[in-house]
C-alpha cells in the first residue's frame, strides 16, 4: 500500500514541475514505478477475488450449508429481488437519512465546542474536563439510557449517531486549532489581520487537516452507532432488514445487509478522502498525491 502511494507521489512531483525532467533516467524510472504500481494493485485485488470464488465454489459444491453462508451469487440475486420488489431501497434511504441527520448534529456540536475550547482558555477550563469524562464512556454503553430517555424511535437512533460523532470531531478540532504554527499567527498579526481574518485565513486552514481526520473517524463511528441502533427495535432501515431476516433464518438477506453496511462504510471513507484531496490540495501528504 505504502509503495503504491510513494510511487504516485513521485509521479505528481514530476508532473507538478510542468517540464520534462532533464535526466532521461527519471522518466523511465517513473514509468517503471507506474507499471510496478499497477502490478501491485492487481496483486492486492487477487486475494479477495480468489476468496469470493472459493466461497462460491464451496457453496455450489454443497460444502457450505445455505443456512450458514449462502453463495455470493445467491446474495446478489436476493439483492436484485429485494431492490426491485421489496423495500431494500427504501430501507437504505432511511438508514442513510438517519446517519446524515446524526452526523450533521454531532459534527455541529463537536465542531462548535471544539472551536470554543480551541480559542478560549476559559472555555477550555469550563468545558473540556466534562467532555473528556463523557468521552471516557464507550458511547454504546449509553444505549439503554438513551432508550429510556427517547424510546426506540428515530430520535434515539439519531441521538446515538450524533453522540458517536461529536467526540472525534471535538477532539480533532481542538487539537487542530492548538497545533497551528504560532509563527504563522505572529505573521498574521504583523500583516495587520484582525481577529476574524486571523481565524479565517490562518487558524482554520491550519486546523483543517486535523479536523478532516476527525471527520474520517466520525464517519466510521457514525456507521457503527447506526448498526447498533438499528439492530434494536427498528421498524425500517438496513438493520431492521437484518433482524427481520434473522426471524426467518434468511442468511442471504443477513449477508446482504452486512455487505451493504461494508459498502457504505467504504463510500463514507471515499467521501472523506475526496474532501481531503479537495480541501488539502496544498498539503504535501494529501492533495494530488492520493
Amino acid at each position, binding site marked *: 500500500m505504502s509503495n503504491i502511494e510513494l510511487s504516485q507521489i513521485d509521479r505528481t512531483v514530476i508532473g*507538478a*514541475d510542468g517540464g520534462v525532467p532533464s535526466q532521461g533516467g527519471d522518466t523511465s524510472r517513473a514509468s517503471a514505478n507506474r507499471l510496478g504500481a499497477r502490478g501491485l494493485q492487481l496483486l492486492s485485488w487477487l486475494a479477495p477475488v480468489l476468496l469470493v470464488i472459493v466461497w462460491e465454489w464451496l457453496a455450489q459444491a454443497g460444502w457450505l450449508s445455505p443456512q450458514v453462508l449462502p453463495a455470493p451469487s445467491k446474495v446478489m440475486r436476493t439483492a436484485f429481488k429485494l431492490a426491485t420488489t421489496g423495500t431494500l431501497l427504501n430501507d437504505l434511504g432511511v438508514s442513510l437519512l438517519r446517519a446524515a441527520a446524526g452526523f450533521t448534529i454531532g459534527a455541529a456540536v463537536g465542531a462548535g465546542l471544539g472551536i470554543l475550547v480551541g480559542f478560549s482558555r476559559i472555555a477550555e477550563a469550563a468545558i473540556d474536563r466534562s467532555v473528556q469524562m463523557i468521552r471516557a464512556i464507550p458511547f454504546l454503553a449509553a444505549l439503554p439510557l438513551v432508550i429510556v430517555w427517547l424510546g426506540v424511535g428515530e430520535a434515539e437512533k439519531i441521538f446515538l449517531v450524533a453522540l458517536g460523532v461529536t467526540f472525534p470531531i471535538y477532539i480533532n478540532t481542538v487539537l487542530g486549532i492548538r497545533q497551528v504554527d504560532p*509563527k*504563522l499567527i*505572529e*505573521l*498574521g*498579526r*504583523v*500583516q*495587520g*489581520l484582525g481577529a476574524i*481574518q486571523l481565524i479565517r*485565513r*490562518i487558524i482554520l*486552514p*491550519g486546523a*483543517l487537516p486535523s479536523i478532516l481526520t476527525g471527520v474520517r473517524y466520525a464517519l466510521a463511528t457514525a456507521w457503527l452507532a447506526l448498526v447498533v441502533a438499528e439492530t434494536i427495535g427498528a421498524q425500517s432501515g438496513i438493520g431492521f432488514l437484518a433482524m427481520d431476516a434473522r426471524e426467518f433464518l434468511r442468511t442471504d438477506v443477513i449477508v446482504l445487509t452486512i455487505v451493504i453496511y461494508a459498502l457504505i462504510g467504504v463510500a463514507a471513507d471515499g467521501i472523506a478522502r475526496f474532501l481531503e484531496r479537495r480541501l*488539502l490540495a*496544498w*498539503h*504535501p501528504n494529501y492533495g494530488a498525491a492520493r
Partner: protein
Amino acid sequence: MNVHVAPLSPTSFESGPAVVVSNLMRSYGSRVVIEKLNLRIERGEFVALLGESGCGKTTLLRALAGLDSIQGGRIVAPRRPAVVFQEHRLLPWDSLWRNVSLGLQIPNARERAAEALTEVGLGDRLDDWPRNLSGGQAQRVALARALVQQPELLLLDEPFAALDALTRIRMHELVRELVANHQPGVLLVTHDVDEAIALADRILVMRNGAIAFEHRAARDGSTPISRAELLGELGVMSHSPS
C-alpha cells in the same frame, strides 16, 4: 500596553523618520534585555544591526514590530512596519498571490500582489503553491509580501541566514534594488558582518542591551569600515595582519 505607536504629523510624512525610539526599556522578569536605547531611522536609510547572540537585537526588532510589549520608553512610527523573518512564513494553504496580499485591504489585491511578485522575479508564479518554491524563492515572496504593504519601516530579522551563499548574494542585490525603489527605512538584524558592510548606510553594534558602536558609511563609499574593525567591536579577535 506600553507601546506607543503614534502617527506623526502629515508634514513630516514625506521625508520624516521611519521610526524614532527613545529610552526603550525591555526586560524579561528581572533580567533587563534592552536599557535606555535610542534609535532613529530615516526613510530610505538602511541600518544594519550587529551583535552576538543574546545581545538584545532580535528583542529590539520584535519591539519595533509591535510583537512584544515594552516596559519603558517610546516607539514612534508613522504606520505599521513590515517584517521579513528568518523563515519565510508563507501560508502553505494559500497561493503565492494570496500570500503576498495577506492583510491588504484593497479591491485590486491580486493586481497589486502580481506587481510585487513581478518585482521579485516571480510574476509568472501567481497561482503556484509555496511548497513548490526553493528557499530563496520563498524568501523573495516574503519580501514581496512585506513591500506590497508600502511600509515606511521594513524590519529584516536575519532573512538571508538560512540561504546558501550564492542565493544570499543575489538576495542582497534584490534587496538593495527594492529598498532603492520603495525608500522605506530598513533595520536589518544580522550576525553576518559582510552582509552589513555590503548593504547598510549605517552599521550599529549592540552590546548588553545598548548600542555600543555606530559607523556611518558615506554615500559614495569614501569612509569604508574594515571587516576586522567590526569583528573587533563584536569581540572577535582578528588574526589578519594589521
